[in-house]
């Protein structure tokens, strides 16, 4: 376990180094990026380079960068003229507001659909659910979002087309929770429907496997109905693959929100990534990359460790 934590720490260090060199080694003059004008006079360019310490050797620059990252200083965004860390923390809340309910909903939806499909195994309902789940699994989420906006925000104007609050509202707080909720519904539903597909398929598959085992015959012989047999006995045995999938997905949940946020212009971290690209905001982009990497690495390690407790077979290895 300690080994895993050390490994994670090394991974994070590697991610920091990777992001540093990614933005330095690849073509493009940083002083040009700061001013946003390639016709910059040489004198100004040298001055800018000196000001930001870009004239120092690469390795010295790297250690300055490393020290700053550990102090929580990720530089200042070109576009917002604010510390990157501050922007990230602000946006993180919006992402959490969207992701937590959407993830829970997608798992619940997946479980429900999986149970129904397995309960009505081989019938039309099963076929419909399985094909729908395959469809949701394969649909590119940005296009799925576009279709949802077209159907439920433009054609039938039930929901707003995007954003977290209306155009006139400037502040987000408990005062306008209702407004936020209203904007939240469509992206949340889209996310959960798209991501429920794979949960449905996995649970259906593992439930069907359990149902074909001998002990289920005995349970049926005892007089349980099919549904009761699934609910009381099969579900528990079939849940391990689902738990594995959910925990494996944990790191990727954050990534899933990127496209959904972009389609629905939800001002979270994913949307921020596109804004950073749009405004050529290098510090913000680098900060985002580091943040996403760190979260992914920490999630993966946490899941690994948690898994040792859930499944004792892993511990023995």
């Amino acid at each position, binding site marked *: 376990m300690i080994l895993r934590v050390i490994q994670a720490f090394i991974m994070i260090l590697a991610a920091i180094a990777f992001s540093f060199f990614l933005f330095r080694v690849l073509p493009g003059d940083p002083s040009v990026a700061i001013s946003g004008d390639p016709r910059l006079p040489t004198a100004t360019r040298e001055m800018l380079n000196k000001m930001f310490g870009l004239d120092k050797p690469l390795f010295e620059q790297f250690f300055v960068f490393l020290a700053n990252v550990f102090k929580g200083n990720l530089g200042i965004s070109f576009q917002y003229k604010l510390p990157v860390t501050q922007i990230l923390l602000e946006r993180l809340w919006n992402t959490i507001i969207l992701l937590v309910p959407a993830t829970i909903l997608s798992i619940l939806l997946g479980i429900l659909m999986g149970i129904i499909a397995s309960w009505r195994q081989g019938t039309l309902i099963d076929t419909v659910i399985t094909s729908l789940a395959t469809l949701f699994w394969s649909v590119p989420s940005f296009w799925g979002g*576009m279709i949802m906006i077209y159907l439920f925000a433009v054609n039938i104007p039930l929901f707003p087309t995007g954003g977290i609050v209306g155009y006139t509202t400037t502040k987000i707080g408990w005062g306008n929770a209702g407004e936020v909720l209203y904007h939240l519904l469509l992206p949340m539903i889209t996310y959960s429907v798209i991501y429920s597909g794979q949960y449905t398929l996995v649970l259906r598959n593992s439930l069907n496997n359990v149902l074909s085992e001998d002990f289920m015959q005995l349970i049926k012989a005892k007089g349980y109905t099919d549904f009761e047999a699934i609910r009381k006995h099969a579900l528990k045995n079939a849940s391990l693959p689902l738990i594995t999938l959910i925990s494996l997905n944990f790191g990727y949940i954050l990534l899933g929100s990127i496209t959904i946020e972009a389609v629905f212009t939800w001002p979270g971290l994913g949307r921020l990534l596109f804004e950073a*690209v749009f405004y050529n905001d290098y510090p913000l982009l680098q900060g985002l990359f580091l943040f996403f990497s760190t979260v992914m690495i920490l999630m993966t390690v946490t899941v690994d460790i948690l898994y040792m407790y859930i499944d004792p077979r892993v511990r023995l290895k």
Partner: protein
Amino acid sequence: MRMKTSTRIEMLKWKLSLHIKRVVNFLNQLRMKKSALLAFIILFILVVISIFPQLFSLYIPTEVVGSAWEPPSLAHPLGLDDVGRDVLSLLIYGTRTSMIVGFCVAFLAIVIGMPIGMLSAYYGGMVDNILMRITEFFLVIPSFPLMVILAFILKPSLQTVILSIVVVVWTQPVRIIRSEVLSLKERLYITRAKVVGNTNMRIISRYILPRVLPLAFSTMIMAMGWAIPSEAFLSWIGLGDPTNISWGTMLYYAFTRGAFTSNAWWHFIPPGIMILTVVIAFNILGHSMEEILNPKLRKTI
């Protein structure tokens, strides 16, 4: 010892017939699975379209042939886009981009991933440790942001798009090939080859590579199914090649230029359906190939 030429030709003939038999056998098995056959036919048609798009499209896709967002009509079955280009022709030429990106990405991912996976599994120990740590690093690094950043930093072009996607997908073949070779190298015939005195390189190329190739092929098919939506995604956020026609670029223009509010559903629904169809078809074909080529898997499923 030299063989007589006629004997050699006989040998070659026999070998060739064996190969043909294998291919026919494979196609026969593919025919047994209806969904796989359908996927194969769809993809075959799309590949033909992507090679000869000019045969199928009625208009030059970059040409303005009418007013913006003209609804579908007989002359333009899928209407016109935001500047008055024929959507069906754009769709047909977009197939080419998707297929090129899909093939190049899948090919490169296999060329990079297969040797790493084989060497890592075969040698084990230190080699495995180093190679797997690098692979793990790329697995855990968030793929979307990395892809976006690479596509953003490099000059926007088709090569950039391909490279950015390769950087995030090459780890999948490594994992698949590695676990296959791990079980292969425990087989008796590999031990026998070693005892007889074959060098490691010879064992890998003569005894392991041929056994891994079918799996590599099915992985490549599936990798195309991952690469094509990734290209669409990059183009959709405006990081694709601006001079290129692709399904993602079509969706980008539809999204940014208000096809929603103009109610121009023909502009954004067809490209998405194409992406969806291709993804599902590649996945079905890849999975069925894996099952056919790997009889072990067929028994367990």
